[in-house]
């Protein structure tokens, strides 16, 4: 019963961090840090409330597989837009630092 309470408090604190993030003047580069509190909360939920370690090694394996495949989907999936320079709307400004385009669109 006691560890449940501690985890609940940790979650509330991290929730407050996530909420606070809305008011932090973060530069564009550090934007992914905003996801940090949420990811820690997800970890607490998985290890604490869902007790992924109980019930043998399978739940842990399936959870890690899901995370790995998510990284493949989001990582490889965003490889194209990050390196694609053709779409006119965004290419005006310097918002996308991207490597020198292989075909210098004149």
């Amino acid at each position, binding site marked *: *019963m006691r560890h*449940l*309470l501690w*985890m*609940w408090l940790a*979650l*509330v604190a991290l*929730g407050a961090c*996530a*909420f606070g*993030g*809305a*008011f*932090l*003047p*973060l530069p*564009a580069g550090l*934007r992914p840090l*905003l*996801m940090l*509190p*949420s*990811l820690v*909360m*997800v970890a607490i*939920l*998985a290890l*604490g*409330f*869902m007790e*992924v370690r*109980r*019930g*043998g090694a*399978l*739940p842990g394996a*399936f*959870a890690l*597989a*899901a*995370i790995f*495949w*998510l990284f493949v*989907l*989001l990582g490889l*999936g*965003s490889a194209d*837009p*990050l390196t694609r320079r053709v*779409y006119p*709307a*965004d290419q005006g400004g310097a*918002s*996308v630092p991207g490597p020198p385009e292989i075909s210098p669109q004149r």
Partner: protein
Amino acid sequence: MSENVAPHTHFQYEDARHQADSAIAGMWLFLATEVLFFGGLILAWIFCRHWNPEGFAAGAKESVLWIGTVNLALLITSSFVYGLGQAAIEAGRVRMLIWCCLLTAGIGVVFLGLKLLEWHVDLDENLWPAGPFKLHGAEADGGRLFWIFYFVATGLHAVHMLVGIVAVCWIALRARRAEFTADWHTPVTVVGLYWSFVDMVWIVLYPLIYVVGRLS
């Protein structure tokens, strides 16, 4: 080998524990598929935001921050309450499990109520992506894309929340029929896994909708 080793064990399992662990592993596997389901949505978020950063952020600024935050707190508490219920049944206290289930379902209903309120507010402000839209000029496109993502994501999450509430009520019903004991309560654990996962989805969606957009 006798037919029924324990009251609930199917014939293809050796004992109740073997079946319980299989059910838990099965639910974790189902949750893995749900991770990929919402993962596809997050890829759409990445693409839409990448191609229209200003418009997307302008759209995100229109979201109702306080309702989102209250809902986040509600779901965290509901996971805690259901965790209490699970601890109760492991100690054999069926009545407390029933109360915890009803309280969890109650929090879920409040969450959905707030969500409907939020949608009502959004629709009033012409934030529905099709038709007359609140934002104009360059930000209208990115804004529409944000709100398409918003309504699809919160809609799907609400559906999952509904399924969760029904499941929790079903657990409360079976607990009232004294089906669960200290050493056999697998459905309680399995529904707990599903409920905590729905909570996780909201924890991840919360910054994507309410926080990231507000900065730029």
